[in-house]
């Protein structure tokens, strides 16, 4: 098993993600430079958090044109697992691998804090280690995490069980008062129709070591490892 973490200019959670995959989860992991295009070695591609190209145009907008993104597209079309975290999620949206777009948080601020998210679909390669309705405590850290999709897309996403996590309270109640950024339907993570590309705003790599206050993020990495083991 081998994992790859893409490094765009301006990525800043690349090393954090590498650290968790490689040192905490124990899966050999490498960095993938944004100009690389050969991904066939990897069992998982992670697009990490950060501010690719400064996020100067729109979050994730310029990164989408990096050479590596064409390769990621092909890789995902062949069924390869892709996980976009935070800025990685934004890149996936911008490149059309996932439906929708991110708007500015409704309070206009960058928000960094722990939130609760409730799993809505445990039948994915990223959530199979979770129980139905389980609530995780994981930090968010973004300025543009206010998920938007057209009415039609939103309907389809719902109908296909593509909503994977929603912002909730610690008991799993989902309402506007626990929606940190204004996302439609409290959406924190969605998956593509084929079920191999997940985008999530919360940072599981920041919640995978006890000393950092939560290990809930590990469920996601464990799920991926389970899935890959069973697939073999």
């Amino acid at each position, binding site marked *: 098993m081998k994992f790859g973490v893409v490094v765009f*200019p*301006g990525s800043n*959670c690349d090393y954090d993600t590498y650290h968790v995959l490689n040192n905490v989860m124990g899966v050999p992991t490498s960095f993938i430079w944004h100009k690389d295009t050969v991904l066939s070695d990897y069992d998982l591609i992670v697009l990490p958090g950060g501010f690719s190209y*400064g996020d100067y145009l729109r979050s994730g907008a310029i990164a989408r044109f990096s050479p590596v993104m064409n390769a990621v597209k092909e890789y995902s079309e062949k069924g390869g697992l892709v996980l976009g975290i935070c800025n990685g999620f934004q890149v996936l949206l911008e490149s059309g691998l996932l439906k929708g777009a991110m708007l500015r948080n409704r*309070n206009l*601020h*960058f928000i960094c804090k722990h939130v609760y998210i409730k799993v809505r679909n445990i039948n994915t390669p990223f959530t199979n280690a979770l129980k139905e309705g389980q609530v995780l405590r994981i930090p968010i850290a973004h300025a543009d995490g206010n998920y938007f999709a057209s009415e039609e897309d939103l309907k389809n996403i719902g109908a296909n069980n593509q909503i994977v996590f929603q912002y909730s309270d610690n008991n799993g109640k989902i309402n506007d008062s626990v929606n940190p950024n204004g996302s439609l339907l409290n959406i924190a993570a969605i998956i593509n129709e084929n079920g191999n590309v997940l985008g999530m705003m919360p940072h599981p790599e920041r919640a995978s070591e006890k000393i*950092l206050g939560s290990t809930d993020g590990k469920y996601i990495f464990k799920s991926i490892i389970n899935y890959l083991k069973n697939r073999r």
Partner: protein
Amino acid sequence: MGFENLDKILEEHNLTKSEYERIVEILGREPNITELGVFSVMWSEHCSYKSSRIHLKKLPTKGKRVVQGPGENAGVVDIGDGYVAVFKIESHNHPSFIEPYQGAATGVGGILRDIFTMGARPVAVMDSLRFGSLEKPLNRQIFKGVVAGISGYGNSVGVPTVGGETCFDDSFTYNPLVNVFCLGITKKDKVFYARAKHVGAKVFYAGAKTGRDGIHGATMASAEFDDSLEEKRPNVQVGDPFKEKLLIEACLEAMDKGVVSSIQDMGAAGLTSSSVEMADRGGKGIEIDVSKVPQREEGMTPYEILLSESQERMLIVAEPGRENELKKIFNKWDLDIVEIGQITDSGKFVVREKEKIVAEIPVSSLTSSAPKYDRPYLNIVKSREKEIDNNDYIGKFSIEKIINGFLDDPNIGKKNWVFEQYDHMVQTNTVVYPGRGAAVIRIKGTDKFLTMTVDGNPDYVYLNPYEGTKRIVAESYLNISVTGAEPVGATNCLNFGNPEKPEIMGEFKYAVEGMGDASKFFEIPITGGNVSFYNETNGAAIKPTPVYGLVGIVEGEDNIITSNFKDEGDLIYLVGNLKPDFSGSFYLKKYYKRVEGVLKKTPLEIVKKVGTFLRENVKLIKAANDVSQGGVFVSLLDFITDRFGYFLQIPEVFSPELFLFGETAGMVIVSISSENQYNFEKKLREFSLDFRKIGAVVSESIKIEMLNKIIYVSSLKSFIKRYENAIPKRMEV
């Protein structure tokens, strides 16, 4: 040569007549305008420390852990196992008033460069912020902009902002303080210095292009504001955090590969001070050609190129023979890098524009032999301190009213509104988050933890610069100690008014002495810092604000003490110097509208003993915090969680006001498991420390009792709500 309207030109350059004469003497001729510009920035207060140098000498700078004290871009302290911590504070006060967002953002950018230029990866930022009251729209606007600027820049470059302080006092309305601390980590044998080594080595310019930004910035930062501010306004620098992030990666990679001989960021006075300091520290000369400098605008003069303060630029001397490798690394990161000159043995700073020499100045005349002033000073303590009787300030307001007022005050209220805008977790090292006292970060790959804090208290220093500053150092010492850490080194940022006024100079001199004496007592070396003078607007100075940044170390996760309550039934103790007093207190300022009293002598012995006690008894302590501004009541706020509050019994010997809101140096609050009561008290007696059991941890409520009568009670939920809403309710209209 000679200038037609010399007086006007000197005024514009903030140089005195006698300074000008000295320049003529040094050069043996009249300077040209470019040279005058160079002298003016290098001899500005900001670069030359001309009013402060003789006093800064009194600060202790040596210690067994010190690898590099003052004199480089940042101090370097050995933290064991081959690692060093590199840290410093810088101010960006004036720019943050003119353009809060960009001023604060570029402040972060500048201090980051000071750290990575030494070969260390920045791992933590802290910000010490002071503004006028939030009741005024202007202050809200500045506050909002500053926080957004720090957030916008720091988050983007991926360095967590793990702590800081945010205070409001009307003396900062037209002169907010934005002091930013940064700490980096590297291996001891990987530290880089800005010292030219080899004659003939090539000098490279890397990073952003040079524009006309902030020309006269260095002199501006040293000039008092007046109403002609409007005209100076175009001199605003805009930060580019994306470029900074690329610079960090490129510089660290280049240093790691051994292709860098020496390196220096272009901060205040840009290309001039970086070239000059590089040559000076190596005892060499330097020659540069300004026509080779990448320029953003057309028709820039040598004067403008030399004095520009465009951001995100580095000066790098290549390791001879490795020039191409250096260029390749920067190209990989999409950054401009061009050769602009070389190191010489002339001892001179020579600037060419193609073939033509446009400036030629002996390096040392710009640095070590820059003017130094022993400015006249006054000891103002006698006029400000006046005995008060604590009993005159009780009974007027109900305890409930005071508590609610405290919780609702932006100075006391929780600072989530600020630190949740900062990414305080990126790099996944933050073990103790902002809002719980000093920040603690881990160092991956070791069993070490660093604790850090920035502290100031202008009210204390205003009353008594010497004692007040000692008290700040003592507070920092305890701030670090309550995490279980041992202090290893400090930095400071000294924010004062116009040093040409004897009263201000007196504040400065005695504050530095207080800082020096207390640091010596605790054996804390001060490895660097920053002086910011002329914090005045239309003649009114800020309250004197020395800020102390202290770093400590903890070996092993088990030796960290945190401040949050752990379990119901745990006992709460006061330990140390149990002598609350209203002098200089927040209570007096808030409810009696006065900063007065006599600051008691800081009991350094007791403070040290408390620190040692904490470190040696980590196993007995479940939570701890020091008592500082706002007294016991405010200190207890850091302990509260969404589950646990407290039940307090006020000892009869105190009035509730004095007990809850009185302030003192050398006191901490500790919670312990009731099983450990005997052992804990026994240890305290062994240390001959005063202590008092004052209450217990309870679920879901806050309750205060005196003589078996409840004097305050609240549900935890509504208490916290008030506490967390003080700032948002003023900012989110």
